[in-house]
């Protein structure tokens, strides 16, 4: 299997752990990832606030490049990028006038739609998901995890078409396929405060605290995330939240790919767990030989 890989801005800075662990598990699965040479930023959570056209052009320019390189599907791990790519495709399909404007800017036409896929979709589809159990090398069944999906991956459902938007199971299914049981909780799809992290940290601390509280209440020992924004808010800001409210969570926040990599026997040295703000040793202690 071979996909284009949109290794975006955040996966090269704050979310390097995500990229590293994702590559490790895709390698084990023999799935080849090709980075488009001429990629540019997709506009992230910024462009759509100032110009609709710009917010459509930036992701579609990347898809045009991928099409030029002869690939028909792209794996997009950052949920903000994933949401921008899918929104842009949806909007030009609905609005021919916007489509014409986009084509004028990017100077190329879309003959065939490049498929935009999140790594969770690759891993949860056949034949990949059936192969996961045989690749498990370490036992993590003693670790209690909640899977957190956030907003961008799921909403609005008519555009994202990802799982059941109010009660998704995709990540839970994948984690249990590699022997990591997940707990049920009520904050699976709540917002962490995302893009207000730098401008209004007090709002982010409130929303992220609600999440941490609920995870703790159901007995979670780690939270599994698919998004660099969620990771930043829950991991990097966790200590601040604890200080502000005089509580202690000490909840490691791991990308689902990091948890999978650990179960699939990727050595700790080949991951970037040291980049986490909340110490991950409590998770590593639960990784036992089978």
């Amino acid at each position: 299997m071979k996909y284009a890989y949109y290794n975006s801005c955040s996966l090269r800075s704050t979310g390097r752990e995500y990229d590293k662990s994702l590559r490790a598990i895709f390698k084990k699965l023999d799935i080849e990832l090709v980075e488009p040479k001429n990629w540019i930023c997709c506009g992230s959570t910024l462009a759509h606030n100032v110009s609709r056209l710009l917010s459509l052009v930036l992701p579609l320019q990347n898809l045009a490049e991928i099409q030029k390189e002869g690939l028909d599907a792209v794996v997009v791990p950052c949920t903000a990028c994933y949401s921008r790519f899918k929104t842009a495709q949806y909007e030009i399909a609905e609005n021919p006038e916007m489509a014409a404007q986009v084509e004028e800017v990017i100077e190329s036409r879309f003959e065939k739609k490049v498929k935009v896929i999140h790594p969770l979709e690759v891993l949860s589809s056949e034949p990949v998901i059936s192969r996961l159990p045989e690749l498990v090398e370490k036992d993590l069944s003693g670790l209690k995890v909640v899977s957190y999906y956030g907003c961008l991956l799921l909403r609005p459902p008519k555009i994202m078409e990802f799982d059941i938007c109010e009660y998704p199971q995709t990540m839970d299914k994948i984690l249990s396929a590699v022997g990591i049981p997940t707990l049920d909780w009520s904050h699976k799809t709540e917002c962490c405060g995302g893009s207000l992290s730098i401008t209004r940290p007090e709002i982010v601390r409130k929303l992220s605290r609600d999440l941490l509280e609920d995870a703790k209440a159901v007995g979670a020992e780690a939270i599994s995330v698919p998004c660099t924004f969620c990771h930043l808010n829950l991991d990097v800001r966790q200590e601040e939240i604890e200080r502000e409210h005089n509580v202690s969570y000490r909840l490691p926040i791991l990308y689902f790919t990091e948890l999978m990599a650990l179960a699939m026997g990727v050595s700790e040295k080949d991951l970037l767990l040291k980049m986490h703000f909340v110490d991950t040793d409590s998770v590593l202690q639960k990784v036992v030989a089978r």
Partner: protein
Amino acid sequence: MEKIKELDLPSDHISEFGDLVKQMHDVDVNMCYQCRKCTSGCPVAEYMDYSPTQIIHAVRLGLKDMVLSSNTYWLCLACGTCTTRCPQETGLLEVMDALATIAESKGIRSNAPEIAKFYETGLSNMRFFGKLYDLGIAGMYKLKTGKLTQDMGMGIKMMRKGKLELLPTFQNQGEMRRIFKKVQEVEKKARGATDK
């Protein structure tokens, strides 16, 4: 009992302001029947000057100044909860985008100037480097807003952990600048066509 204003409106009423929003983002605020499902699920409603439900109604009535001077659309996280749950599929997400775009183009900063500053800083960084240079955005933003000490400790720790690129790298920046320029041209042309 006093009559509620909206009942005086014919069912197909749409204000000029509502019409502009519709033109920009294909959303019809007239579809809203004020059930408040959007506000019930909005994670930041408590911080907003007016709730999403109030904002969409105000757009419908054409209360442009009231809407644009609020912090509502700046605080919107684009989490999509409102749009997902709206029984009328009004598309509040797009309404919020349209309002931010109008405010940005008119230089309106209202009650959340720091958020507008952040968007501008981020976009000029994106235009310059072709990708986002986080440390540059954070630094410029802090300089422009005078909030130099806020998050300073966190920033230093992030650098030490290797979460921030110390020096910027460029990514296809020539193409990015071409796109920014061309988008403006095409937008101008499209505006000219509808004005006629």
